[in-house]
């Protein structure tokens, strides 16, 4: 087996302690995925595993064996950005840029979750589908990604803009 990372097969590490995060950053030099706590508490290490957002710091790399991982590098690049990346620039959804890849990966998955009708704690009617992504809904759904620079407003603006384009 292997871990598919942004489309490329990578062997799972021999040391089971290696987190998916450390595999990405230290062994593959995919440093777009960030580390803010190593405790599951900040969201900076968010990546997509089989399309779902997860925390790479609490995922052992061996657990990802046989699965497919998308990191920020797999979403887009400076030259050809993902719509969310472009919207983050437009709305100044970052300052230092450190929480940013995690925010963008989380947002990408979040938009798909909403499309699939996933409710949140704030959703009044749990059975309603599709979910309307209000500002509050986006804020709740993104709360696992901390930003200490305080770019929250821009982040939510950027996501809402992309969500509206999706819907259109």
């Amino acid at each position, binding site marked *: 087996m292997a871990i598919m990372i942004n489309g490329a097969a990578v062997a799972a590490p021999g040391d089971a302690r290696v987190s998916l995060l450390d595999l990405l950053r230290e062994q593959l030099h995919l440093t777009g995925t960030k580390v*803010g706590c190593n405790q599951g508490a900040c969201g900076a290490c968010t990546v997509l595993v089989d399309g779902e957002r997860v925390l790479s710091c609490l995922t052992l790399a061996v657990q990802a064996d046989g699965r497919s991982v998308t990191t920020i590098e797999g979403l887009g690049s*400076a030259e050809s950005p993902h719509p969310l990346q472009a919207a983050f620039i437009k709305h100044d959804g970052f300052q230092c840029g450190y929480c940013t890849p995690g925010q963008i990966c989380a947002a990408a998955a979040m938009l798909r979750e909403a499309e699939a009708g996933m409710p949140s704690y704030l959703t009044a009617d749990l059975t309603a589908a599709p979910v309307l992504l209000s500002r509050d809904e986006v804020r709740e759904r993104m709360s696992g990604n901390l930003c200490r620079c*305080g770019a929250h407003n821009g982040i939510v603006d950027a996501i809402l803009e992309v969500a509206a384009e999706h819907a259109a």
Partner: protein
Amino acid sequence: MSRVQNVVVGSVRTALGWVPAQWLPGGTPDPLIERRAAIGRQASRLDGPQKVAGEARFAAEVAMDRLVYATLVHSPVTRGRITRLDTAAAEAAPGVTLVMTHRNMPRLGTLPLIGVSDLTAVGNSSLPIMQDGEIRYNGQVVALVLADTQEQADHAAGLIELDYAAETARTRFAEAKAGARTPASILIDKNHVSIGNAERELASAPYRVDYLYRTPGQNHNAIELHALTVAWQGEQLLVHDATQMVAASAAALAKLFGLKKDDVRVLSPFVGGGFGGKGLWDHQILAIAAARLAGRPVRLALSREGVYRIIGGRSPTEQRVAIAADAQGQFTALVHTGYSVMPPYGACPEQYTMGTRSLYRARSVEIVQRHIDLDIVPNTFMRAPGEAIGTFALESAVDELAHAMGVDPIELRLRNLPERHPISGAPFSQHALGQAYRDGAGRFGWERRKAEPGTRREGEWLIGLGCATGSFPYARMPGANVRLTLHADGTATVSCSAQEMGMGTATVQVQHAADRLGLPIDAITFEMGDSALPAAPMAGGSCQTASIAGAMAAAADKLIGELLRLAGNDTPLAGLRAGEVRFADAGIAGIAAPARHETFRSILARAGRETVSVTAAGSMPLEFLKFAMHSSSAIFCALRVSGVTGEVRVDRLLGSFDCGTILNPMTAASQFRGGMIMGLGLALTEETLFDERSGRIMNATLADYHVPAHLDVPEIDVMWTGIPDPRSPLGARGIGEIGITGVAAAVANAVFNATGKRVRELPITLDKLL
């Protein structure tokens, strides 16, 4: 600062009082204030594409051959000494290259503390760094392990056996108050200010408030962990660090390790948030020493817990604010005294009385700060040190007084705004707090506030509105240098060691350079984050922008002279002197006769030059000794408090700022908002839990220390007067820290308006409102 320095600063101020303003730097307003093109325009961040793509490289992301990983071991004991140390098992563990303890750590001196006199003094702690077996605070590093992988290093660190003989430690704030020290100065201001007899005025005034306010310790919690990747090449040292002080760190490291200044290179092009916390601490010294011992490049990234253990945060305080007013609401007494923790080996006095010194006029004033010694990791500067929490106490008290008098709190403030600096008597360079209040109140809808607290209810929720003043002093650092290089193709490069932590340093300085040099933005490249470049000051005190701007202005002046010399006589400019020309349209033009113009390209081509380059330092920042230069703000908050649970939900926050010229509305708005959001954390959720029984921080995680999450952050409206400060470069005054000031009080005042409950102890958690 010592008493001697007090006298020196005092006498410089007095002397400057007699010097005509035109003689000072900034004496005549920066001409660019009138000629802004790129400045003030919305420009998105130049480094945006890299950052959103994860392509911006941070300090822990530099790849190196033969790299080894470091893990630190922290003392769980607060005071005492190591009695047994067994590293054998750790040394024998797989992958381990080195175990470093006080036994084999190279002998080094201590770091001089951050100060105003010596710009290479940037230490946050003057304690010895792993030089002996003494334990001086809980969390102090006692060992460092290097191994081939982080996992191996972490594991081996756990195999080190240590015993300690614990001694009694000073850990209790209330008990230590008795032994508090009263320093002569707080930064460059005299500490104790006593005008009139405030206690007597208080006793006799028709209206007065007199309360204690408490604020807890806090931590910066930049999302990027403190980290460095370091390599020795012979006697040369290369440090990729996450630091807000590139040049000063390099200089300090050179001194500490006995190296030539040019042999130390610190690189820090991106910093994942600093807020005052990313200075020079023990971990950099330890990693550098270990790399030397091991003969291999080292990466050290602190764990989140490690950051709490060895990087100090904001000090807890207990502050007394008392205000008396006469029947007309004029302040007759203003008292602000209190205690904060500042061990003698630390650098930050937590200047919580600073705002009080400049915001209001009062017939009598009593201000003094006292320092408590505890055995703790030294506290340090954290976003708007002092002012963030000092404005909580002061501006809560003003609101309390307004309520007691039955006067609108804005009205009460406006009645007491000073004409000149209330203590020094110096004229304000520019000051429009009144306008900020009026503009803000209008946009916010202040008139909808009900003066009677606890009277607006929507279902379960009690609604409240509050406001408060924020304040932050202007500063410009001496020792800022900028190199300007013009290229034959007509483009320019601006170089200095400045740091980018999210403020948009490069973006704003490129806008500045474009206007300064008369070039379009895309003709400018900005190089920074490298100590090999001309030294810029640290990013702190919200002064980086003004400091670099001052240096760039000086360099531009020098460049004009150089270009005129190169241009010679065979030019439309012939005969014009430096004072008679200015930069315009990608070249130089006569001021009186703009048609006399020659482009950079043409001048360089004729002179046969590939480049022309000048370096200059900013002038001495005497302007802020002669003038009172302060930014201020009016913060408005609308919130709800659950009548059932006491939970607070902030619905709206508005900041109206008076900060001089706004150089880039987009990045400035983000800076303001960022500060205000940290202010929300300060007001409602953040507290470092320091267990006074043990002297240990107990919530050293981002799960247990609550910084605001997305759902805690409402839409935040920001606006500004935009009035340029005639005494500062570009008319700008610095915007990085003021955002946080005033917010906690605005929230507390709104909570009072909603519930009738006055909370004088931060954070305002729900249990205080049940």
